[in-house]
């Protein structure tokens, strides 16, 4: 079955979404990630969406769910690499990704995770 790979690096989990996700694939990722956080005791999750050409309310909700679920499992989530056109559209759609931390790129996302995990 089709799956989005989750990479483990130290105490972090890394996901880079490189395909135009259908809804079941998005739900699968949500399930896989929460399972991996629990299994590995990961402290941070970084999700790279720089390849996504659009984020609709379904994918937006999935990102929000992942952030909320990982918080409950004592891990921080940061979403990185959103394209400007996607950000403009998402806000006009009415979705502001409340509760989801974002960073411009992978590097600043990793920096954000390490301060929130090590410093908090």
């Amino acid at each position: 079955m089709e799956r989005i790979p989750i990479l483990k690096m130290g105490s972090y989990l890394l996901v880079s979404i490189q395909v135009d996700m259908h809804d079941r694939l998005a739900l699968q990722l949500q399930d896989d990630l929460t399972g991996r956080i629990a299994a590995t005791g990961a402290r941070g999750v970084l999700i790279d969406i720089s390849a996504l050409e659009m984020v609709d309310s379904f994918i937006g909700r999935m990102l929000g769910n992942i952030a909320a679920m990982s918080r409950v499992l004592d891990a921080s989530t940061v979403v990185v690499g959103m394209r400007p056109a996607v950000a403009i559209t998402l806000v006009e759609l009415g979705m502001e990704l409340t509760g989801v931390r974002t960073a411009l790129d992978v590097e600043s996302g990793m920096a954000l995770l390490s301060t929130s995990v090590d410093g908090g």
Partner: protein
Amino acid sequence: MATTTSREDFPLTSSEHIVIVRQAVRRRAVESGFSLVDQTKIVTAASELARNTLMHGGGGVAVVETLQNGTRTGVRLTFEDKGPGIPNVELAMRDGYSTGGGLGLGLSGAKRLSNEFSIETVPNNGTRVVIARWK
């Protein structure tokens, strides 16, 4: 008066079909010379409406058309189902109102992302939503 210069029909009976419709709309928007932001807006609106057709309408069809009105080019999308219809359209158009477990941004969000928007719904007979965006 706008004339249709080309038209494609797509089934909407599974979540993979939503992806196929998104990609077709993207192609049309690129061919029509839409800016990147306008492409993203109409593709996102298409995704919301296609999902409504699938989840609330029990499946249906999407029609993707390229329009010409004088020198203006546009993309028109029609989503049609034979589902239960929407009992209260005014309520369904409100941000945050949902019966499908979603966020309730589908109709209202798609309207904000389009230049033209119309909805016709008949109880027990189905719903048709038409949107257009012009370059």
